[in-house]
């Protein structure tokens, strides 16, 4: 009954720590123009529906939805804002097309994190106002608590986490859009300033500004528009417990369930064998390991060893975050997942330049909404397929 959906256009700005000379509207416009050009569509004529991913408190504007349609070309057309991870937005676009209500949908996500002068204070407002907020826990402190629990439960080490940082920052040197490429060793990560034990300054991805737009199309339209449509084979998303007290610390259940749903749709039984590479949330160094395990690439506690053995390097069996990930590109807040999707699409098209992986067919992107949420979303993409 439901029809296949492909990504036919991607546009993004460079990812930068500061972008004082442009407004959020201008970076959204830049990414949108590039994506529509890439897809060969005129948004006024060809795009049926628009999805934006945004949170009011980050934007500094209530009902941010109001300020979206003009610069993405969505005026007097269906538009909706999803306050979620960008891959939640992608899943929304997917469902709109699969349901038959739209043939072509544009998904936009952006970060203007440099406008937020007091990010930990904003994040504090995401805590339960009665039970958690009075504790005034800094988000990095909460992540540090989870990392401590994860290291204890899984047997992973700080050194293994530091290897993730070194890998991703080195990868980012080959990505012209990345903000934080660096030739760095694990030791440098461990010796950096301690922010909230066990997280040093280098274990934490720094925020960046940037925007990404993806254009999705139904099967028949996708074939007409693109010689290399990238098919969405599976999407999955899940929330674990929203309060700090009732969640499973250490294990990323939201990632386990999101992965299972996406794999079920894509017919994937063994992700390690059937997925060629992955762009996985690495907001903090340990998150890449925790998410790799949750997404079924290895058993709980194994991801650190695989990283040390080079399995997740560019030349390994499962290259992870070849783009540089959040640690290398910079953290785009809720737009991070669409940055990951864009990286997967470029690889599957063979357009990733010096980062290009040989002979890739299927890739995974996974995004997490960050502290204090347990909300994640996954998408399996492939350059093969499209017949149902």
């Amino acid at each position, binding site marked *: 009954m439901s029809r296949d959906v492909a990504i036919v256009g991607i546009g993004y700005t460079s990812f930068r720590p500061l972008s004082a000379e442009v407004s959020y509207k201008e970076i959204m416009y830049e990414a949108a123009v590039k994506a529509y050009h890439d897809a060969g569509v005129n948004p006024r004529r060809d795009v049926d529906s628009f999805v934006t991913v945004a949170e009011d408190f980050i934007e500094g504007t*209530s009902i941010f939805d109001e300020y*979206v349609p003009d610069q993405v070309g969505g005026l007097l057309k269906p538009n909706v804002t999803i306050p979620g991870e960008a891959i939640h937005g992608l899943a929304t676009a997917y*469902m*709109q097309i699969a349901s038959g*209500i739209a043939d072509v949908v544009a998904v936009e996500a952006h970060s203007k994190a440099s406008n937020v002068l007091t990010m930990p204070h904003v994040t504090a407002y995401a805590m339960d106002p009665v039970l958690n907020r009075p504790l005034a826990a800094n988000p990095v402190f909460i992540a540090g608590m989870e990392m401590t629990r994860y290291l204890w439960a899984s047997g992973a080490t700080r050194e293994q986490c530091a290897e993730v940082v070194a890998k991703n920052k080195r990868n980012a040197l080959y990505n012209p859009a990345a903000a934080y490429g660096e030739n760095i060793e694990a030791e440098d990560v461990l010796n950096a300033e301690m922010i909230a034990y066990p997280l040093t300054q280098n274990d934490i991805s720094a925020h960046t500004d940037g925007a990404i737009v993806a254009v999705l199309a139904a099967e028949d339209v996708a074939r007409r528009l693109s010689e290399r449509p990238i098919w969405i084979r599976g999407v999955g*998303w899940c*929330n674990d417990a*929203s309060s700090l007290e009732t969640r499973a610390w250490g294990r990323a259940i939201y990632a386990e*369930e999101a992965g299972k749903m996406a794999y079920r749709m894509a017919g994937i039984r063994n992700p390690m064998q059937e997925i060629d590479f992955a762009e996985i949330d690495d907001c903090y160094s340990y998150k890449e390991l925790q998410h790799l395990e949750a997404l079924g690439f290895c058993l709980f506690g194994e991801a650190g060893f695989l990283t040390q053995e080079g399995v997740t390097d560019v030349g390994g069996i499962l290259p992870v975050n070849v783009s540089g990930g959040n640690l290398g590109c910079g953290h785009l807040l809720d737009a991070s997942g669409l940055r990951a999707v864009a990286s997967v699409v470029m690889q599957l098209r063979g357009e990733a330049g010096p980062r290009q992986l040989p002979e890739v067919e299927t890739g995974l992107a996974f995004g997490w909404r960050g502290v204090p949420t347990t909300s994640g979303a996954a998408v399996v993409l492939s350059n093969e397929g499209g017949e149902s």
Partner: protein
Amino acid sequence: MSMRKVAVVGAGMTKFVRRAQETGKELSYEASKMALDYCDLSLDQIDCVVHGTAPDSFDGVHMKGEYLADGSGGWRKPYTRCYVGGGTGVFAPIHGWYHVASGLFDLCLVVCEEKMSSCQPHPQGAFLTIFDHTTERPLGPNLLWIFAMEMNRYMHTYGLKKEDIARVSVKNKRNAADHPCSLLGDADITLEDVMNSPVLAWPVQRLDVSPVTDGAVALVLAAEHVARRISDNPVWIEGVGWNLDTSYWTNRDLCYPRYVENAARMAYDMAGITEPRKQIHIAEPYDPFDYKELHHLEGLLLFDRGKAPEATALGITQRDGDLPVCPSGGLLGVGNPIAAAGLMKVAELFWQLRGEAGARQVPGQPKRGVAQAWGDLMQVGTVIVMGV
């Protein structure tokens, strides 16, 4: 392509009150539990949860969707929040509709919650932050002012008198007297009461405006094969539409909501409605202000432009008239917890079309209804058509 049919099979609603003792999570829980009990389902049978709630600044909770997730049943399940300002309440079931129509899920719980009373001294303070930070916010605008401008424009364009508009408030507050959840139902209210109420921003007077309210509403949506199994009289979602106009509201003629017309045409096309005035038996247009009901009835193509006031004066829109409008009592009577108020309108269609509306029941066994919400900067229309 033929679309997968989706039905509403259950609905639940808390009392709408000025200041709820319950937290937002508790209100969400109460409505969700009632909706599940209505169709004898338990939460573990639900495949996914959709949440709608308006500005985070009401509750002072960042990522409000994440905070409300577990109270709404979004625990270890696919969960997303959708957001189109005041239009959210009717958009949430549309968001739920494509969750099911896409084929990804069979049973979807749709929850809308609003807790406005947390905002002290008055939620108008939160609304200050919806305006453009550069061009409008420095003027300190207020929703009552801008809606007074729109109301003035509407009255001026069609030569209407204040009495022509105030009749809507009388009708809806009287209708709401029959609603067990209503905040401002009043069987004895008269036109003089509205005309003599304090002027807030001419021509808007106190009784032209819906009240600040707390409350929650939930629906259960089911795919056709499930709906037929678990329900004797499912109410089908026949059409959905949504549309967003420019952010630059100062640049357009406020006398007519063209975005509502676009959304209505989208929904009518999907439902196969060619003559809405004959084919629609009940309307629940968004009525946060009395003139908005008239404005929206015209946008929904149910009356000619500028003619809805005359129809109201003739009694056509009374509960026993030719086209009952807001038989629930609407936002003016039942109350206006923003997102929950929109979903209340969809729930009202569910009860009316099943003949379960009790003292509010519209005579003549109505077969099809339309519900609509409106929001952002006088900018978004969301429309749903349901039938039996």
